[in-house]
């Protein structure tokens, strides 16, 4: 790979690229062209560096499974998402998103308790109720309504608030800070203000939960993390970092999925009709899986750094 390094770096196209407005669900045309030409290409990101963009399925799978490839964002050359993420890299404790191998597994298992099949299945009545309330509220007011603010955002936000034990009244606060930190050109200053107040919020919440004896009303993910802090497994800061990850990943992704999922069905009314007329839970679950594959809401993919030459 090294012989092409200098040759292509000068002409590397900017990344991420814009999608074609006429075909909003497809990856950007330039990415598709690059993928047809070769499985790896240099691209230029916000800081002027030129990491490899992997577009080949086989190559991507191989690299994800390669132990020389790391997700540790403190390594030199890691392609940070924006200036904010780079500037806070040493302030953020390592978490499930930035650790490799055994350390990753340890963090991951700490977060798995609320996501077992039985626990998620047990949420069904509560999710149904939240969804019904949102739809009733839309129907009770003049039409048309904004499906993003009235359904796509409040449903996952209320559900993740309940799962984490975060007061729903605080949703505007954490939604705002989550959005600031994720923007492509978030400056160090903008992002830091948001990240620091969100981190402090979670630290305070973990500390509050540490004081509450386990029992009725403490079946939530932040209480689980607080218990691990009490047990000496992790620090308050680590617990807050893991909680922040769940909070952001838990509502942004689902909200975007609901919003563009509805749009995809509106553009394919025959598919929407098949779903509307079906009582088969497996058929509907399969359609949801297919929508997640088709829409791929994390469109710009996962970032890694090579820990040694490959």
């Amino acid at each position: 790979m090294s012989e092409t390094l200098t040759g292509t770096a000068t002409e590397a196209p900017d990344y991420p690229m814009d999608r074609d407005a006429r075909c909003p669900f497809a990856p950007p045309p330039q990415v598709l062209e690059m993928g047809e030409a070769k499985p790896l290409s240099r691209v230029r990101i916000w800081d002027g560096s030129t990491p490899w963009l992997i577009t080949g399925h086989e190559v991507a799978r191989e690299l994800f499974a390669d132990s020389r490839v790391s997700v540790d964002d403190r390594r030199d050359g890691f392609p940070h998402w924006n200036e904010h993420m780079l500037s806070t890299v040493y302030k953020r404790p390592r978490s499930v998103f930035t650790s490799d191998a055994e350390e990753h597994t340890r963090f991951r298992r700490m977060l798995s308790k609320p996501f077992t099949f039985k626990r998620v299945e047990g949420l069904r009545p509560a999710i149904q109720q939240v969804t019904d309330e949102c739809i009733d509220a839309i129907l009770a007011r003049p039409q048309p309504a904004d499906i993003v603010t009235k359904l796509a955002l409040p449903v996952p936000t209320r559900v993740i608030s309940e799962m984490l034990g975060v007061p729903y009244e605080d949703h505007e606060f954490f939604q705002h800070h989550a959005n600031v930190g994720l923007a492509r050109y978030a400056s160090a200053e903008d992002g830091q203000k948001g990240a620091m107040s969100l981190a402090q919020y979670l630290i305070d919440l973990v500390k509050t939960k540490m004081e509450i004896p386990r029992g009725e009303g403490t079946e939530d993910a932040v209480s689980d993390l607080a218990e691990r802090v009490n047990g000496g497994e992790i620090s308050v800061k680590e617990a807050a970092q893991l909680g922040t990850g769940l909070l952001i990943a838990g509502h942004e992704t689902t909200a975007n999925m609901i919003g563009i999922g509805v749009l995809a069905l509106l553009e394919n009314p025959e598919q929407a009709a098949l779903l509307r007329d079906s009582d088969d839970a497996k058929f509907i679950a399969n359609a949801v899986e297919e929508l997640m594959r088709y829409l791929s809401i994390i469109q710009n993919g996962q970032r890694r750094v090579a820990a040694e030459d490959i």
Partner: protein
Amino acid sequence: MKVTVAQDKCVSSGQCVLNAGEVFDQRDDDGVVLLLTDNPPLEQAENARQAAAACPALAIDIEE
């Protein structure tokens, strides 16, 4: 049919319980796979195969 699971590979996605709840379960504390039977009856065999195919960590092995 002989089913084996690799708990060290398991990523707690729960796809096994979703596909074959009579054959697999998850530990309450961390969601790691538990094998309820390593020799499922014929009527559960297809579900067990689907569970193995759906496992994102390839942690389920099936010998026919």
